[in-house]
């Protein structure tokens, strides 16, 4: 990631999926701290708290209890302070509708979680490579 001190925000409720992301990040030697919150509402609370560090990227699951990924995007993209944080959707859903909704809400990427862990590592590696090169507004 471009700023190795900024945290990566992972909005994900499945424990093993969180472990998978952590393990993959460790494996490809990404040193950013990882903040994990288990639904959209928690994530908004964190992002709007002036004490918390703003993340360099948000990895967002779509299927979550209380506030799902699409609902989270709808709120976040209307918030002037949050809307420029890049969001990469990380989901099981390969539904066209989910993809359309996500891109309508200005996501920076849409990745389907592969069942195979090795492939998952490759997905995370690609995300990291891209966001290491890409410029982001401060």
């Amino acid at each position, binding site marked *: 990631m471009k700023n190795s001190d900024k945290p990566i925000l992972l909005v994900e409720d*499945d424990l*093993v*999926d969180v*472990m*998978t992301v952590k*393990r993959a990040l460790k494996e490809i030697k990404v040193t950013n701290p990882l903040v994990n919150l288990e639904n959209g509402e928690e994530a908004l609370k964190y992002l709007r708290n002036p004490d918390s560090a703003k993340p360099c990227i948000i990895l967002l699951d779509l*299927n979550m209890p209380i506030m799902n990924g699409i609902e989270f995007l709808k709120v976040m993209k209307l918030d002037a302070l949050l809307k420029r944080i890049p969001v990469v959707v990380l989901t*099981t*859903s*390969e*539904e*066209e509708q989910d993809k359309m909704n996500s891109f309508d809400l200005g996501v920076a990427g849409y990745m389907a*979680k*592969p*069942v*195979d*862990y*090795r492939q*998952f590592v490759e997905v995370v590696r690609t995300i990291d490579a891209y966001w290491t090169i890409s410029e982001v507004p401060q």
Partner: protein
Amino acid sequence: MYTLQKPSFRLKSPAAIFLIVALSVFISEASVMLLLYYLPERSLISEAIVDATLLVALISPALYFFLFRPLALHIRERERIEDVLHKNEEEQFKVMIRTSLDAFLITDLQGRILEVNDAYCSLTGYSREELLKMNAAELEATESAEETASDIGKLLETGSIRFEARKRRKDGHIQIVEVSSNYSNLNGGRIYSFLRDITERKQAEEHRDSLMREIESANEELKNFAYVASHDLKAPLRAIGSLADWISTDYADKFDDEGRAHMRLLISRVHRMDGLIDGILLYSRVGRVKETRVAVDLNRLVADVIDSLAPPAGITVTIDNPLPSIMTEPTRIQQVFQNLLSNAIKYMDKPEGKIRINCCAEGRQWKFSITDNGPGIKQQHFEKIFQLFQTLAPRDRVESSGVGLALVKKIVEMYGGHVWVESALGEGSTFFFTLPRTTATLIQTEGTQA
């Protein structure tokens, strides 16, 4: 001479008289006929002629005898015949109304009932005597007096109307009737109506509609169920896959050969289940997710499919004749060819594999066929192979989800086509499918223009 002449005169004179009389009778008859011919039926003139006959008799007996009397007689006879015919017609009309299964009703413009038939009495439950004292509006179940008045207004404008109405029977039951009314301006305006009880038909229609709604919602639920279920199954499956991967990596040195083999099997089963879930998702998506239909050039599409399947060196795929362009969802038709061709390639057991694609017009359909010289299929399996998750080879030998042919069948049937197989064991199989040509032909001409 004188005496001679006289008899000759006498001889001549009866002939002359006869001639004169015959001539006058002929002229009078002819003029009577002519007059009758041009006289309009039951006109004032004919009435005047009859009335004037006596007067003419007094003034001029000759005119009376030769013209007016026969004329008056003829007119009276004609009127008598007309009356008989008219009475016959009226009688016929009455019998027809009595015979009718439909209820019949005559009212005046105020809705007062003037005549009904037996069917109307049994429809309403009132006797004829009761009905003749009633107003048609009293039988309306839901319609207000204003609405009835507006209906009558419409009838006067157009001359005839047809509508549905709800009537209240004497016993209080409401029935739905179909009414056909005609207006006639006879006797100060009459409304003639035939009524038919359609309560049962209406109830059957309502019942059918509610059944359709139930089926639709059940179907909708089923569609979503497959999608939601397969979706939710994937998350834990991925967790199992990841955990198995980490265990076999992190504890590699602690496993013996058997343990490692078991972990490999575990992970491969996770992949298989993943394939099955993808299959369900794919299958449930057909019909649930609609694409817009566009003109698809099958020559190009099939060539692309063959390219993507990359058949191994020993297998040749040929297209026998040019394929048509059809109006369809590109993804779906691509899935049909992709599954049929990949099966032909996957199961090929001959060193020199030959796969042929053919298409011909058959009536209103295109008939496509994909022929291979592979292992062939036993006739007893011809139906089974099109069912979801049915495979003929053990999955450990040929990895297959068992979704392909079920998907092909679902897609082809969704388009109103038909899919089947013909095969001889050891010699090969031919898969046939049809697609309606109706839109296809039109698109083909568009295609050549473009």
